[in-house]
């Protein structure tokens, strides 16, 4: 113990902690000093006293009370015995209760953790479900949502869509349209069209006049046929507009190939889109 005498103040009493090893005479002096110096702090109220650290006899207690009375204005009303046994019992209960509390808290925490784990599992499942749904939705985007683009697409211009796309205009050679879904051109398609760019081979490309340089669906690529032999024919094909009105056509994947069909009564009857 660093100090021979320690005074601790509580709400309505003073706890006096005494050194058990030094002789009582020496202790008296120290007590006198301590109380004298704490005179102002303690004031002149009525207080109880409890002595700890050293077992005092009745006489010694009286001497201590006398010293306190001489050195400060505090009126000691009663002396509370510091019972070691009781202390031990108390402390045991306290520690027991601590342990109990700890255990309980631990249990609660465990329960909570389990709950959270279950929750997170559920959430994970939910997330997975959502991702699945999203993927399905993306796959279905071909027939689901579509962006509408108005105007002609000229050489060097590109459209890149996360949905299907409908173009109200022509797509000129050198222009390109890319879409994760399908591409519908309400005009003539002479440029490049890349449908199902994320790999959806159910996507299709449709145009009022389907004469593209390139059509890609998923991983597949189809290119336009090279010019037909015969000079005059070639020129007519390349430069002049064909005199007859062309029927709308659809390009889609069939048996691992991109095929082109006239979008007419026979095509609709064949239920190609459904398969």
């Amino acid at each position, binding site marked *: 113990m660093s100090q021979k005498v320690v005074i601790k103040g509580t709400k309505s009493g003073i706890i006096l902690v005494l050194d058990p090893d030094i002789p009582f005479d020496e202790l008296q002096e120290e007590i006198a000093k301590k109380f004298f110096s704490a005179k102002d702090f303690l004031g002149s109220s009525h207080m109880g006293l409890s002595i700890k650290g050293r077992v005092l006899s009745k006489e010694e207690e009286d001497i201590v009370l006398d010293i306190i009375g001489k050195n400060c204005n505090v009126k000691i009303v009663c002396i509370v015995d510091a019972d070691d046994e009781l202390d031990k019992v108390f402390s045991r209960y306290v520690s027991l209760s601590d342990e109990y509390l700890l255990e309980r808290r631990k249990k609660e925490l465990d329960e909570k953790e389990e709950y959270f784990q279950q929750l997170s599992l559920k959430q994970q499942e939910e997330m997975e479900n959502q991702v699945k749904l999203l993927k399905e939705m993306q796959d279905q985007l071909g027939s689901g949502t579509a962006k509408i683009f108005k105007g002609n697409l000229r050489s*060097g211009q590109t459209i890149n869509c996360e949905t299907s796309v409908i173009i109200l205009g022509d797509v000129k*050679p050198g222009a390109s349209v890319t879409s994760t879904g399908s591409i519908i051109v309400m005009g003539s398609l002479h440029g490049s069209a890349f449908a199902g760019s994320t790999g959806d081979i159910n996507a299709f490309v449709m145009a009022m006049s389907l004469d593209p340089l*390139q059509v890609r669906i998923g991983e597949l690529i189809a*290119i336009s046929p*090279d*010019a037909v032999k015969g000079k005059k024919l*070639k020129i007519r094909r*390349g430069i002049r507009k064909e005199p007859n009105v062309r029927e709308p056509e659809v390009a889609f994947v069939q048996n691992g190939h991109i095929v082109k069909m006239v979008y007419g009564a026979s095509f609709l009857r064949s239920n190609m889109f459904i398969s």
Partner: protein
Amino acid sequence: MGEVIVVTSGKGGVGKTTTTANIGTGLAKLNKKVVLIDTDIGLRNLDVVMGLENRIVYNLVDVIEGNCKIKQAMIKDKRYENLFLLPAAQTKDKNSVSPEQMKTLAEELKKEYDYVLMDCPAGIEQGFKNAIAGADRALVVTTPEVSAVRDADRIIGLLEANLIQKTQLIVNRLRPDMVKRGDMMSAEDVIDILAVDLIGVVPDDENIVVATNNGEPLAGDSSLAGQAYMNICHRIIGENVPFLDLESKKGLFATLASVFKKN
């Protein structure tokens, strides 16, 4: 080790792309391994003239940016096994490529091909700088018009400034009948002004228009222009070929007309 040849002119519309396509085809016909590079990013035409537009998947910018391997972007010609095209990007601009990158690419291609032909865009800006970056030889195309000759002069100056020693001239779209009448500069007049070596004279020929529209260059066929281009190819690989006598190769109508004139 191959040779990198840039086909340039300064002025637009004098026939750079047509010349590139025809010389490429001609060299391929002479069993050389040839690659044509379209450096006209944003305004590509060489693929159309070659009739390979529908085969483009990757382009020059993809190669430069490393999106694909060189082999993937190469398009094999329809008719010649040893003729390839590296098309330009249409959706980018000329600043997406730097002269240093083009030089590296040219060096790379030189190892594998006998001839690397660069189709230069019109003008003297970034595209021109890109095209001439790795060139060993330049073919300057001009028509016998004052404006084209003036631009060719400027281009030759720039080529010299960029230390391209071998500069040769192609006089394109010459009309012998107009030269005869004194309404057009002759090839000799053009050489006098520009003071460079002439490598070929190509007459104005309807067949060129037809061939361009068909996407099948006519180098080496029976037409006058086809023969002229083939001769240029022979000269490029170092053979000595006499210049065509453009006068004698008159059409039937012209021959008849001259007969009538005599009477």
